[in-house]
Protein backbone atom coordinates (compact mmCIF):
# COMPACT_ATOMS: atom_id res chain seq x y z
CA UNK A 1 0.00 0.00 0.00
CA UNK A 2 2.58 2.51 1.20
CA UNK A 3 5.80 2.59 3.18
CA UNK A 4 6.55 5.43 5.54
CA UNK A 5 9.45 6.18 7.78
CA UNK A 6 11.51 8.66 9.63
CA UNK A 7 15.25 9.24 9.93
CA UNK A 8 16.78 11.31 12.73
CA UNK A 9 20.37 12.41 12.19
CA UNK A 10 22.75 14.06 14.64
CA UNK A 11 26.35 14.49 15.65
CA UNK A 12 27.55 11.56 17.75
CA UNK A 13 27.86 12.76 21.34
CA UNK A 14 31.57 12.16 21.60
CA UNK A 15 34.59 14.44 21.39
CA UNK A 16 36.18 12.57 18.50
CA UNK A 17 35.12 9.94 16.00
CA UNK A 18 34.77 6.46 17.44
CA UNK A 19 36.56 3.35 16.24
CA UNK A 20 34.94 0.44 14.47
CA UNK A 21 34.96 -1.83 17.57
CA UNK A 22 33.36 0.99 19.56
CA UNK A 23 30.67 1.32 16.86
CA UNK A 24 29.96 -2.39 17.23
CA UNK A 25 29.50 -2.01 20.97
CA UNK A 26 27.40 1.15 20.78
CA UNK A 27 25.09 -0.42 18.18
CA UNK A 28 24.90 -3.91 19.71
CA UNK A 29 21.25 -3.52 20.67
CA UNK A 30 20.38 -7.19 20.66
CA UNK A 31 21.99 -10.34 22.08
CA UNK A 32 23.09 -12.79 19.40
CA UNK A 33 22.79 -10.29 16.56
CA UNK A 34 25.76 -8.83 14.77
CA UNK A 35 26.31 -5.18 13.93
CA UNK A 36 26.89 -4.94 10.18
CA UNK A 37 29.91 -2.87 9.27
CA UNK A 38 31.05 -1.79 5.84
CA UNK A 39 34.40 -0.05 5.47
CA UNK A 40 34.38 1.18 1.87
CA UNK A 41 34.16 3.95 0.87
CA UNK A 42 33.39 5.10 4.40
CA UNK A 43 32.99 3.21 7.66
CA UNK A 44 29.31 2.62 8.19
CA UNK A 45 27.92 0.54 11.06
CA UNK A 46 24.31 -0.60 11.28
CA UNK A 47 22.56 -2.02 14.33
CA UNK A 48 20.25 -5.04 14.15
CA UNK A 49 16.58 -4.22 13.50
CA UNK A 50 14.27 -3.97 16.47
CA UNK A 51 10.49 -3.91 16.56
CA UNK A 52 7.98 -1.79 18.47
CA UNK A 53 4.34 -2.84 18.68
CA UNK A 54 1.62 -0.29 17.99
CA UNK A 55 -2.18 -0.24 17.80
CA UNK A 56 -3.28 3.30 17.04
CA UNK A 57 -4.66 5.87 14.64
CA UNK A 58 -2.66 6.49 11.45
CA UNK A 59 -1.98 9.93 10.01
CA UNK A 60 -4.64 11.13 7.56
CA UNK A 61 -4.87 14.46 5.78
CA UNK A 62 -8.66 14.14 5.76
CA UNK A 63 -8.69 13.80 9.53
CA UNK A 64 -10.48 10.45 9.39
CA UNK A 65 -9.58 7.98 12.11
CA UNK A 66 -7.86 5.04 10.46
CA UNK A 67 -6.75 2.29 12.85
CA UNK A 68 -3.52 0.39 12.26
CA UNK A 69 -2.05 -2.54 14.18
CA UNK A 70 1.42 -3.99 13.77
CA UNK A 71 5.09 -3.35 14.29
CA UNK A 72 7.52 -0.56 13.49
CA UNK A 73 11.08 -1.55 12.46
CA UNK A 74 13.83 0.60 13.95
CA UNK A 75 17.57 0.63 13.67
CA UNK A 76 20.53 2.87 14.37
CA UNK A 77 23.59 3.67 12.31
CA UNK A 78 26.90 5.43 12.78
CA UNK A 79 28.65 6.85 9.72
CA UNK A 80 32.35 7.62 9.74
CA UNK A 81 32.37 7.04 13.50
CA UNK A 82 30.87 10.53 13.73
CA UNK A 83 27.26 10.85 12.56
CA UNK A 84 24.54 8.98 14.44
CA UNK A 85 21.16 8.05 13.02
CA UNK A 86 17.95 6.53 14.26
CA UNK A 87 15.66 5.20 11.57
CA UNK A 88 12.19 3.65 11.67
CA UNK A 89 9.76 2.54 9.02
CA UNK A 90 6.51 0.67 8.54
CA UNK A 91 4.93 -1.01 5.54
CA UNK A 92 1.18 -0.47 5.46
CA UNK A 93 -1.03 -3.30 4.28
CA UNK A 94 -4.78 -3.78 4.27
CA UNK A 95 -6.04 -6.10 6.97
CA UNK A 96 -8.21 -9.00 5.88
CA UNK A 97 -10.47 -8.49 8.89
CA UNK A 98 -11.80 -5.41 10.59
CA UNK A 99 -10.90 -6.52 14.09
CA UNK A 100 -7.65 -6.90 15.88
CA UNK A 101 -6.09 -10.37 15.67
CA UNK A 102 -3.85 -12.19 18.17
CA UNK A 103 -0.46 -10.53 18.45
CA UNK A 104 1.36 -13.53 16.93
CA UNK A 105 -0.38 -12.72 13.64
CA UNK A 106 1.38 -9.36 13.49
CA UNK A 107 4.74 -10.77 14.59
CA UNK A 108 4.60 -13.17 11.64
CA UNK A 109 4.93 -10.05 9.40
CA UNK A 110 7.58 -7.91 11.07
CA UNK A 111 7.54 -4.26 10.06
CA UNK A 112 3.99 -4.34 8.71
CA UNK A 113 1.10 -2.29 10.07
CA UNK A 114 -2.25 -3.67 9.01
CA UNK A 115 -4.86 -1.05 8.25
CA UNK A 116 -8.30 -1.88 9.62
CA UNK A 117 -11.25 -0.59 7.64
CA UNK A 118 -11.36 1.74 4.66
CA UNK A 119 -8.39 3.97 3.92
CA UNK A 120 -6.67 5.55 0.94
CA UNK A 121 -2.88 5.39 0.70
CA UNK A 122 -2.80 8.98 -0.62
CA UNK A 123 -4.72 10.24 2.41
CA UNK A 124 -2.26 8.59 4.81
CA UNK A 125 0.79 9.75 2.83
CA UNK A 126 -0.48 13.32 2.74
CA UNK A 127 -1.27 13.14 6.46
CA UNK A 128 2.28 12.02 7.18
CA UNK A 129 4.40 14.28 4.97
CA UNK A 130 1.93 16.92 3.77
CA UNK A 131 2.30 20.55 4.82
CA UNK A 132 -0.27 21.54 7.44
CA UNK A 133 -1.81 18.07 7.83
CA UNK A 134 -3.89 17.79 11.01
CA UNK A 135 -2.10 16.23 13.97
CA UNK A 136 -4.55 13.58 15.14
CA UNK A 137 -4.79 12.71 18.80
CA UNK A 138 -3.17 9.35 19.57
CA UNK A 139 -1.69 9.15 16.09
CA UNK A 140 1.27 6.88 15.28
CA UNK A 141 4.29 8.71 16.67
CA UNK A 142 7.30 7.64 14.59
CA UNK A 143 9.18 10.70 15.84
CA UNK A 144 9.06 9.42 19.42
CA UNK A 145 9.95 5.85 18.43
CA UNK A 146 12.89 6.96 16.26
CA UNK A 147 14.06 9.52 18.78
CA UNK A 148 14.22 6.84 21.48
CA UNK A 149 16.43 4.67 19.29
CA UNK A 150 18.80 7.54 18.53
CA UNK A 151 18.86 8.32 22.26
CA UNK A 152 19.91 4.72 22.90
CA UNK A 153 23.05 5.40 20.88
CA UNK A 154 23.66 8.94 22.10
CA UNK A 155 23.44 7.96 25.77
CA UNK A 156 25.71 4.96 25.43
CA UNK A 157 28.19 4.83 28.33
CA UNK A 158 30.94 4.36 25.73
CA UNK A 159 30.52 7.95 24.57
CA UNK A 160 31.99 10.88 26.53
CA UNK A 161 29.15 13.30 25.59
CA UNK A 162 31.64 16.04 24.73
CA UNK A 163 30.70 16.83 21.15
CA UNK A 164 33.02 19.39 19.47
CA UNK A 165 30.09 21.62 18.53
CA UNK A 166 26.34 21.69 19.07
CA UNK A 167 24.14 20.83 16.15
CA UNK A 168 20.43 20.06 16.33
CA UNK A 169 19.11 16.74 15.03
CA UNK A 170 17.43 16.80 11.66
CA UNK A 171 14.28 14.80 11.02
CA UNK A 172 13.55 13.38 7.60
CA UNK A 173 10.01 12.04 7.19
CA UNK A 174 9.53 9.92 4.08
CA UNK A 175 6.91 7.96 2.16
CA UNK A 176 7.61 5.51 -0.63
CA UNK A 177 5.29 3.91 -3.15
CA UNK A 178 5.67 1.77 -6.23
CA UNK A 179 5.15 3.55 -9.55
CA UNK A 180 6.75 5.82 -12.14
CA UNK A 181 10.07 6.98 -10.64
CA UNK A 182 9.94 10.38 -8.97
CA UNK A 183 11.49 12.05 -5.96
CA UNK A 184 10.50 15.19 -4.06
CA UNK A 185 12.70 16.47 -1.26
CA UNK A 186 11.36 19.41 0.73
CA UNK A 187 12.96 21.48 3.47
CA UNK A 188 10.39 22.69 5.97
CA UNK A 189 11.76 24.20 9.18
CA UNK A 190 15.42 24.28 10.23
CA UNK A 191 15.22 20.66 11.29
CA UNK A 192 12.37 19.12 9.31
CA UNK A 193 12.52 17.62 5.86
CA UNK A 194 10.16 15.45 3.88
CA UNK A 195 10.78 13.07 1.05
CA UNK A 196 8.24 11.53 -1.31
CA UNK A 197 9.58 8.71 -3.37
CA UNK A 198 7.98 6.66 -6.10
CA UNK A 199 10.15 3.74 -7.12
CA UNK A 200 9.80 1.05 -9.76
CA UNK A 201 9.39 -2.50 -8.47
CA UNK A 202 8.43 -3.64 -4.98
CA UNK A 203 9.68 -2.04 -1.78
CA UNK A 204 12.92 -3.42 -0.35
CA UNK A 205 15.02 -2.20 2.60
CA UNK A 206 17.34 -0.64 -0.03
CA UNK A 207 14.80 2.21 -0.16
CA UNK A 208 15.43 2.78 3.56
CA UNK A 209 19.20 2.81 2.88
CA UNK A 210 18.60 5.51 0.28
CA UNK A 211 16.56 7.64 2.71
CA UNK A 212 19.22 7.24 5.41
CA UNK A 213 21.96 8.17 2.94
CA UNK A 214 20.06 11.27 1.85
CA UNK A 215 19.45 12.19 5.50
CA UNK A 216 23.16 11.94 6.37
CA UNK A 217 24.11 14.20 3.49
CA UNK A 218 21.34 16.68 4.14
CA UNK A 219 22.51 16.83 7.77
CA UNK A 220 26.15 17.33 6.70
CA UNK A 221 25.15 20.14 4.39
CA UNK A 222 22.92 21.76 7.03
CA UNK A 223 25.66 21.47 9.65
CA UNK A 224 28.39 22.88 7.43
CA UNK A 225 26.11 25.79 6.56
CA UNK A 226 25.54 26.45 10.26
CA UNK A 227 29.28 26.25 11.03
CA UNK A 228 30.09 28.71 8.24
CA UNK A 229 27.26 30.99 9.36
CA UNK A 230 28.47 30.94 12.97
CA UNK A 231 31.98 31.87 11.79
CA UNK A 232 30.60 35.23 10.54
CA UNK A 233 33.14 35.54 7.77
CA UNK A 234 33.97 39.21 7.13
CA UNK A 235 32.44 40.41 10.40
CA UNK A 236 34.94 38.74 12.73
CA UNK A 237 38.74 38.84 12.89
CA UNK A 238 40.33 36.27 10.58
CA UNK A 239 41.91 34.31 13.42
CA UNK A 240 38.54 33.85 15.07
CA UNK A 241 36.91 32.84 11.80
CA UNK A 242 39.60 30.21 11.32
CA UNK A 243 39.09 28.90 14.85
CA UNK A 244 35.34 28.65 14.31
CA UNK A 245 35.74 26.86 11.00
CA UNK A 246 38.28 24.32 12.15
CA UNK A 247 35.71 21.85 13.71
CA UNK A 248 34.23 21.49 10.23
CA UNK A 249 37.62 20.43 8.89
CA UNK A 250 38.21 18.06 11.78
CA UNK A 251 34.81 16.43 11.87
CA UNK A 252 32.74 17.00 8.76
CA UNK A 253 34.57 17.56 5.48
CA UNK A 254 35.74 13.99 4.92
CA UNK A 255 32.29 12.49 5.44
CA UNK A 256 30.75 13.53 2.11
CA UNK A 257 30.19 10.30 0.15
CA UNK A 258 26.93 10.66 -1.74
CA UNK A 259 25.15 7.45 -2.76
CA UNK A 260 27.94 5.37 -1.22
CA UNK A 261 25.49 2.90 0.27
CA UNK A 262 22.72 3.11 -2.28
CA UNK A 263 21.73 0.12 -4.39
CA UNK A 264 22.56 0.63 -8.04
CA UNK A 265 18.95 0.64 -9.25
CA UNK A 266 18.20 3.52 -6.85
CA UNK A 267 21.21 5.73 -7.70
CA UNK A 268 19.22 7.64 -10.37
CA UNK A 269 17.24 9.21 -7.49
CA UNK A 270 20.45 10.61 -6.01
CA UNK A 271 21.61 11.73 -9.43
CA UNK A 272 18.40 13.66 -10.02
CA UNK A 273 18.81 15.46 -6.69
CA UNK A 274 22.38 16.24 -7.71
CA UNK A 275 21.05 18.02 -10.79
CA UNK A 276 18.44 19.95 -8.84
CA UNK A 277 19.03 21.33 -6.20
CA UNK A 278 22.60 20.01 -6.51
CA UNK A 279 23.60 18.84 -3.04
CA UNK A 280 27.22 18.20 -4.00
CA UNK A 281 27.49 21.53 -5.82
CA UNK A 282 26.51 23.40 -2.69
CA UNK A 283 28.74 21.19 -0.56
CA UNK A 284 31.77 21.85 -2.80
CA UNK A 285 31.17 25.57 -2.76
CA UNK A 286 30.96 25.56 1.05
CA UNK A 287 34.03 23.39 1.38
CA UNK A 288 35.89 25.76 -0.95
CA UNK A 289 34.79 28.67 1.17
CA UNK A 290 36.04 27.02 4.36
CA UNK A 291 39.36 26.14 2.75
CA UNK A 292 39.76 29.61 1.24
CA UNK A 293 39.17 31.25 4.59
CA UNK A 294 41.72 28.98 6.23
CA UNK A 295 44.18 29.59 3.39
CA UNK A 296 43.75 33.36 3.64
CA UNK A 297 44.28 33.13 7.38
CA UNK A 298 47.42 30.99 6.92
CA UNK A 299 48.80 33.44 4.36
CA UNK A 300 48.15 36.32 6.74
CA UNK A 301 49.98 34.46 9.50
CA UNK A 302 52.87 33.67 7.18
CA UNK A 303 53.26 37.24 5.97
CA UNK A 304 52.97 38.55 9.56
CA UNK A 305 55.73 36.13 10.48
CA UNK A 306 57.86 37.23 7.53
CA UNK A 307 57.41 40.86 8.51
CA UNK A 308 58.47 40.30 12.10
CA UNK A 309 61.36 38.10 10.87
CA UNK A 310 62.52 40.81 8.42
CA UNK A 311 62.60 43.57 10.97
Amino acid at each position, binding site marked *: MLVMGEVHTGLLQNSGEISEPACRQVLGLMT*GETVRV*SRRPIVHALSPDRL*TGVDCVLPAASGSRIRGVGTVVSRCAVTGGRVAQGSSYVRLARSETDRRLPWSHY*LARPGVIEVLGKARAADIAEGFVGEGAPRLHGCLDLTAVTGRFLDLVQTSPLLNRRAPFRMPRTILRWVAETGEPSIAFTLHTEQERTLRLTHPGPFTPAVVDLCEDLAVHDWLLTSLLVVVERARVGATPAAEVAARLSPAVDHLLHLWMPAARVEERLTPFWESLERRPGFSRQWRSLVDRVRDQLAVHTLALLSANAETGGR
Partner: protein
Amino acid sequence: MTPVHATFGEVAAERRIASVPLSHVSVELGHLYMEDFEAGPARLREQFRRVAPWLATIRSVWRERVPGGRARVSTCFLVDDYFSRFSTPAELVPMILEAAAEHDLTIDYLARESACAQFEDGRSGAVELARLVEDRLVDDPPPETDGSRPPVKETGWLCNGSRSPLTTPLQAMGKARPWEPPTQNAKRGHSIFVDVELWDERGARRTWSCPFLAAVWQLLRLGLLRAEGRVPLPPVPLEGDWPGDWDRLPAVVRINPQAAPFSAYTTLSVLSPRFLPVELAVRTILGQVAVDDEVLRQVAARSESERVRLEEELVDRVSYVFT
Protein backbone atom coordinates in the same frame (compact mmCIF):
# COMPACT_ATOMS: atom_id res chain seq x y z
CA MET B 1 35.28 0.57 -24.13
CA THR B 2 32.00 -0.92 -22.95
CA PRO B 3 30.98 -0.12 -19.38
CA VAL B 4 32.40 -2.55 -16.87
CA HIS B 5 30.01 -3.91 -14.33
CA ALA B 6 31.80 -3.92 -10.98
CA THR B 7 30.67 -5.71 -7.87
CA PHE B 8 32.19 -5.17 -4.48
CA GLY B 9 31.30 -7.05 -1.34
CA GLU B 10 32.22 -6.89 2.30
CA VAL B 11 31.58 -9.92 4.46
CA ALA B 12 31.15 -7.92 7.68
CA ALA B 13 28.48 -5.83 5.99
CA GLU B 14 26.31 -8.80 5.05
CA ARG B 15 23.97 -10.77 7.24
CA ARG B 16 24.60 -14.46 6.94
CA ILE B 17 21.95 -16.63 8.47
CA ALA B 18 22.70 -20.34 8.62
CA SER B 19 19.92 -22.76 7.81
CA VAL B 20 19.07 -25.77 9.92
CA PRO B 21 17.95 -29.24 8.80
CA LEU B 22 14.29 -29.77 9.68
CA SER B 23 12.08 -32.73 10.44
CA HIS B 24 8.33 -32.53 10.00
CA VAL B 25 7.63 -32.87 13.68
CA SER B 26 9.63 -32.95 16.87
CA VAL B 27 7.92 -35.01 19.56
CA GLU B 28 8.83 -34.40 23.18
CA LEU B 29 8.41 -37.72 24.90
CA GLY B 30 8.86 -36.32 28.36
CA HIS B 31 10.31 -33.73 30.66
CA LEU B 32 11.97 -35.00 33.80
CA TYR B 33 11.98 -32.99 37.02
CA MET B 34 13.49 -33.96 40.30
CA GLU B 35 10.11 -34.84 41.76
CA ASP B 36 9.60 -37.36 38.94
CA PHE B 37 13.03 -38.79 39.54
CA GLU B 38 12.33 -39.11 43.23
CA ALA B 39 9.10 -40.94 42.45
CA GLY B 40 11.24 -43.71 40.93
CA PRO B 41 11.37 -45.50 37.57
CA ALA B 42 7.68 -46.45 37.81
CA ARG B 43 6.72 -42.82 37.15
CA LEU B 44 8.91 -42.77 34.03
CA ARG B 45 7.47 -46.03 32.73
CA GLU B 46 3.99 -44.67 33.28
CA GLN B 47 4.87 -41.53 31.27
CA PHE B 48 6.20 -43.60 28.34
CA ARG B 49 3.20 -45.93 28.47
CA ARG B 50 0.92 -42.92 28.01
CA VAL B 51 3.07 -41.37 25.27
CA ALA B 52 3.57 -44.45 23.06
CA PRO B 53 0.15 -44.49 21.32
CA TRP B 54 0.34 -40.74 20.61
CA LEU B 55 3.72 -41.09 18.96
CA ALA B 56 2.31 -43.81 16.72
CA THR B 57 -0.65 -41.58 15.89
CA ILE B 58 1.45 -38.57 15.02
CA ARG B 59 3.69 -40.70 12.79
CA SER B 60 0.71 -41.95 10.81
CA VAL B 61 -0.84 -38.45 10.61
CA TRP B 62 2.36 -37.06 9.10
CA ARG B 63 2.80 -40.05 6.77
CA GLU B 64 -0.58 -39.15 5.28
CA ARG B 65 0.24 -35.45 5.15
CA VAL B 66 3.64 -35.66 3.48
CA PRO B 67 3.76 -36.40 -0.25
CA GLY B 68 5.34 -39.84 -0.67
CA GLY B 69 4.67 -40.70 2.97
CA ARG B 70 8.26 -40.06 4.02
CA ALA B 71 7.57 -38.31 7.30
CA ARG B 72 10.56 -37.16 9.30
CA VAL B 73 9.73 -37.49 12.97
CA SER B 74 12.30 -37.01 15.71
CA THR B 75 11.85 -37.56 19.41
CA CYS B 76 13.45 -35.75 22.30
CA PHE B 77 13.56 -35.79 26.06
CA LEU B 78 14.38 -32.88 28.37
CA VAL B 79 16.03 -33.26 31.75
CA ASP B 80 15.83 -30.48 34.28
CA ASP B 81 19.33 -29.70 35.46
CA TYR B 82 18.55 -25.99 35.99
CA PHE B 83 16.11 -25.68 38.87
CA SER B 84 17.59 -28.59 40.76
CA ARG B 85 20.55 -30.84 40.13
CA PHE B 86 19.92 -34.45 40.85
CA SER B 87 21.60 -37.74 40.03
CA THR B 88 24.16 -37.91 37.20
CA PRO B 89 23.85 -38.59 33.46
CA ALA B 90 25.68 -41.90 33.99
CA GLU B 91 23.05 -43.05 36.45
CA LEU B 92 19.95 -41.39 35.01
CA VAL B 93 20.13 -41.58 31.22
CA PRO B 94 20.45 -45.39 30.88
CA MET B 95 17.42 -45.70 33.17
CA ILE B 96 15.40 -43.31 30.97
CA LEU B 97 16.42 -45.09 27.77
CA GLU B 98 15.56 -48.47 29.26
CA ALA B 99 12.14 -47.35 30.45
CA ALA B 100 11.45 -45.91 26.97
CA ALA B 101 12.57 -49.12 25.26
CA GLU B 102 10.08 -51.11 27.33
CA HIS B 103 7.37 -49.28 25.40
CA ASP B 104 9.20 -49.51 22.06
CA LEU B 105 10.10 -45.83 22.17
CA THR B 106 13.43 -44.52 20.87
CA ILE B 107 14.69 -41.27 22.31
CA ASP B 108 16.60 -39.61 19.48
CA TYR B 109 17.83 -36.55 21.36
CA LEU B 110 18.37 -35.75 25.00
CA ALA B 111 18.65 -32.12 26.10
CA ARG B 112 19.57 -30.27 29.25
CA GLU B 113 17.19 -27.58 30.45
CA SER B 114 20.04 -25.40 31.74
CA ALA B 115 21.28 -25.04 28.14
CA CYS B 116 18.07 -23.10 27.38
CA ALA B 117 19.30 -20.48 29.86
CA GLN B 118 22.96 -20.44 28.92
CA PHE B 119 25.57 -22.86 27.74
CA GLU B 120 29.27 -22.80 27.16
CA ASP B 121 31.67 -25.33 25.75
CA GLY B 122 34.66 -25.49 23.45
CA ARG B 123 32.55 -26.30 20.42
CA SER B 124 29.73 -23.72 20.65
CA GLY B 125 31.45 -21.03 22.74
CA ALA B 126 29.13 -19.18 25.11
CA VAL B 127 25.47 -18.96 24.10
CA GLU B 128 22.91 -17.15 26.23
CA LEU B 129 19.71 -18.34 24.61
CA ALA B 130 17.42 -16.94 27.31
CA ARG B 131 18.87 -13.43 26.92
CA LEU B 132 18.68 -13.78 23.18
CA VAL B 133 14.98 -14.64 23.32
CA GLU B 134 14.32 -11.91 25.91
CA ASP B 135 15.77 -9.33 23.50
CA ARG B 136 13.42 -10.62 20.81
CA LEU B 137 10.26 -10.04 22.85
CA VAL B 138 7.98 -7.44 21.31
CA ASP B 139 5.22 -6.60 23.77
CA ASP B 140 1.65 -7.07 22.66
CA PRO B 141 0.47 -3.42 22.56
CA PRO B 142 -2.87 -2.49 24.15
CA PRO B 143 -5.16 -0.42 21.89
CA GLU B 144 -4.11 3.24 21.67
CA THR B 145 -0.41 2.43 21.82
CA ASP B 146 0.98 5.00 19.40
CA GLY B 147 4.68 4.66 20.14
CA SER B 148 4.87 8.01 21.92
CA ARG B 149 6.01 6.34 25.09
CA PRO B 150 8.13 3.23 25.63
CA PRO B 151 6.05 0.06 26.21
CA VAL B 152 4.69 -0.19 29.74
CA LYS B 153 6.79 -2.89 31.30
CA GLU B 154 6.78 -4.53 34.66
CA THR B 155 10.38 -5.65 34.72
CA GLY B 156 10.62 -9.41 34.44
CA TRP B 157 6.93 -9.88 33.57
CA LEU B 158 5.05 -10.25 30.32
CA CYS B 159 1.28 -10.10 29.84
CA ASN B 160 -1.23 -10.35 27.04
CA GLY B 161 -3.10 -7.11 27.67
CA SER B 162 -3.40 -4.19 30.06
CA ARG B 163 -2.91 -4.73 33.76
CA SER B 164 -5.39 -3.41 36.32
CA PRO B 165 -4.59 0.16 37.30
CA LEU B 166 -3.21 0.51 40.82
CA THR B 167 -6.09 0.80 43.26
CA THR B 168 -4.31 1.37 46.57
CA PRO B 169 -4.74 5.06 47.39
CA LEU B 170 -1.63 7.12 47.94
CA GLN B 171 -1.99 8.63 51.41
CA ALA B 172 -2.12 12.20 50.19
CA MET B 173 -4.63 11.39 47.47
CA GLY B 174 -7.34 10.29 49.85
CA LYS B 175 -10.06 8.53 47.89
CA ALA B 176 -9.35 5.09 46.50
CA ARG B 177 -10.04 4.40 42.84
CA PRO B 178 -12.51 1.61 42.35
CA TRP B 179 -11.03 -1.61 41.01
CA GLU B 180 -10.77 -1.84 37.27
CA PRO B 181 -10.26 -5.16 35.55
CA PRO B 182 -7.23 -6.05 33.47
CA THR B 183 -8.05 -6.70 29.82
CA GLN B 184 -6.74 -9.04 27.20
CA ASN B 185 -5.77 -7.25 23.98
CA ALA B 186 -7.17 -9.78 21.53
CA LYS B 187 -10.17 -10.71 23.66
CA ARG B 188 -13.22 -12.35 22.20
CA GLY B 189 -16.02 -10.87 24.24
CA HIS B 190 -14.40 -11.51 27.58
CA SER B 191 -10.81 -11.38 28.71
CA ILE B 192 -8.49 -14.17 29.71
CA PHE B 193 -5.73 -12.06 31.14
CA VAL B 194 -2.36 -13.77 31.58
CA ASP B 195 0.67 -12.23 33.30
CA VAL B 196 3.82 -14.35 33.24
CA GLU B 197 6.91 -13.99 35.38
CA LEU B 198 9.91 -14.33 33.09
CA TRP B 199 12.62 -14.25 35.71
CA ASP B 200 13.51 -13.10 39.20
CA GLU B 201 16.76 -11.83 40.61
CA ARG B 202 18.41 -12.36 43.95
CA GLY B 203 21.35 -10.02 44.03
CA ALA B 204 23.15 -10.39 40.74
CA ARG B 205 21.84 -13.89 40.09
CA ARG B 206 18.94 -14.12 37.68
CA THR B 207 16.76 -17.21 37.66
CA TRP B 208 14.71 -17.69 34.50
CA SER B 209 11.22 -19.04 35.01
CA CYS B 210 10.15 -22.50 33.92
CA PRO B 211 7.73 -21.16 31.23
CA PHE B 212 10.41 -18.88 29.83
CA LEU B 213 12.91 -21.72 29.46
CA ALA B 214 10.14 -23.89 28.01
CA ALA B 215 9.49 -21.15 25.41
CA VAL B 216 13.21 -21.14 24.54
CA TRP B 217 13.04 -24.94 24.27
CA GLN B 218 10.12 -24.71 21.83
CA LEU B 219 11.96 -22.14 19.68
CA LEU B 220 15.06 -24.31 19.65
CA ARG B 221 12.99 -27.31 18.53
CA LEU B 222 11.37 -25.18 15.84
CA GLY B 223 14.83 -24.24 14.53
CA LEU B 224 13.98 -20.53 14.79
CA LEU B 225 16.91 -19.29 16.87
CA ARG B 226 20.25 -18.01 15.62
CA ALA B 227 23.19 -16.64 17.55
CA GLU B 228 25.44 -14.39 15.47
CA GLY B 229 23.80 -15.97 12.43
CA ARG B 230 24.74 -19.50 13.48
CA VAL B 231 22.50 -22.31 14.65
CA PRO B 232 22.90 -22.46 18.43
CA LEU B 233 23.47 -25.74 20.25
CA PRO B 234 23.45 -28.17 17.32
CA PRO B 235 23.01 -31.77 18.55
CA VAL B 236 26.22 -33.73 18.98
CA PRO B 237 26.78 -37.45 19.44
CA LEU B 238 28.10 -38.54 22.80
CA GLU B 239 31.75 -39.44 22.88
CA GLY B 240 32.38 -42.31 25.26
CA ASP B 241 30.10 -43.17 28.18
CA TRP B 242 27.48 -41.02 29.88
CA PRO B 243 29.51 -38.72 32.15
CA GLY B 244 29.24 -38.54 35.93
CA ASP B 245 28.55 -34.79 35.84
CA TRP B 246 25.85 -32.81 34.02
CA ASP B 247 28.32 -30.10 33.08
CA ARG B 248 30.25 -32.55 30.95
CA LEU B 249 27.20 -33.40 28.90
CA PRO B 250 26.56 -31.51 25.62
CA ALA B 251 23.47 -29.27 25.52
CA VAL B 252 21.66 -31.56 23.08
CA VAL B 253 22.93 -35.12 22.64
CA ARG B 254 22.10 -37.15 19.55
CA ILE B 255 21.49 -40.63 20.94
CA ASN B 256 20.15 -42.28 17.81
CA PRO B 257 22.61 -41.98 14.89
CA GLN B 258 19.78 -42.63 12.38
CA ALA B 259 17.50 -39.98 13.86
CA ALA B 260 15.67 -37.43 11.70
CA PRO B 261 16.83 -33.84 12.35
CA PHE B 262 16.32 -32.47 15.86
CA SER B 263 14.55 -29.27 14.80
CA ALA B 264 11.27 -29.48 12.98
CA TYR B 265 8.51 -27.48 11.29
CA THR B 266 6.19 -28.32 14.16
CA THR B 267 6.42 -29.63 17.68
CA LEU B 268 4.26 -31.93 19.74
CA SER B 269 4.64 -32.34 23.46
CA VAL B 270 2.91 -35.11 25.31
CA LEU B 271 2.40 -33.85 28.83
CA SER B 272 0.49 -34.43 32.01
CA PRO B 273 -2.41 -31.97 32.42
CA ARG B 274 -0.60 -30.52 35.43
CA PHE B 275 1.58 -28.67 32.88
CA LEU B 276 -1.38 -26.86 31.33
CA PRO B 277 -0.81 -23.54 33.15
CA VAL B 278 2.88 -23.67 32.25
CA GLU B 279 2.06 -24.16 28.58
CA LEU B 280 -0.49 -21.32 28.61
CA ALA B 281 2.34 -19.14 29.88
CA VAL B 282 4.67 -20.55 27.21
CA ARG B 283 2.19 -19.65 24.49
CA THR B 284 1.74 -16.15 25.95
CA ILE B 285 5.52 -15.72 25.63
CA LEU B 286 5.80 -17.33 22.17
CA GLY B 287 3.04 -15.04 20.93
CA GLN B 288 5.34 -12.08 21.64
CA VAL B 289 8.63 -13.37 20.27
CA ALA B 290 9.69 -11.74 17.01
CA VAL B 291 11.62 -14.39 15.12
CA ASP B 292 14.15 -13.10 12.63
CA ASP B 293 12.54 -12.29 9.30
CA GLU B 294 15.19 -14.12 7.32
CA VAL B 295 14.83 -17.27 9.44
CA LEU B 296 11.04 -17.20 8.98
CA ARG B 297 11.55 -16.93 5.21
CA GLN B 298 14.05 -19.81 5.15
CA VAL B 299 11.66 -22.13 6.95
CA ALA B 300 8.69 -21.03 4.81
CA ALA B 301 10.65 -21.56 1.56
CA ARG B 302 11.81 -25.00 2.67
CA SER B 303 8.35 -26.19 3.65
CA GLU B 304 6.86 -24.87 0.41
CA SER B 305 9.51 -26.67 -1.62
CA GLU B 306 8.38 -29.96 -0.14
CA ARG B 307 4.72 -28.99 -0.33
CA VAL B 308 4.07 -28.94 3.39
CA ARG B 309 1.67 -26.19 4.38
CA LEU B 310 2.94 -24.54 7.51
CA GLU B 311 0.99 -22.36 9.93
CA GLU B 312 2.06 -18.75 9.60
CA GLU B 313 2.02 -17.92 13.30
CA LEU B 314 4.59 -19.81 15.22
CA VAL B 315 2.35 -20.53 18.22
CA ASP B 316 0.20 -22.52 15.81
CA ARG B 317 3.16 -24.78 15.01
CA VAL B 318 3.30 -25.90 18.63
CA SER B 319 0.84 -28.56 19.71
CA TYR B 320 0.19 -30.70 22.74
CA VAL B 321 -1.40 -33.82 23.99
CA PHE B 322 -2.40 -33.54 27.62
CA THR B 323 -2.94 -36.98 28.97
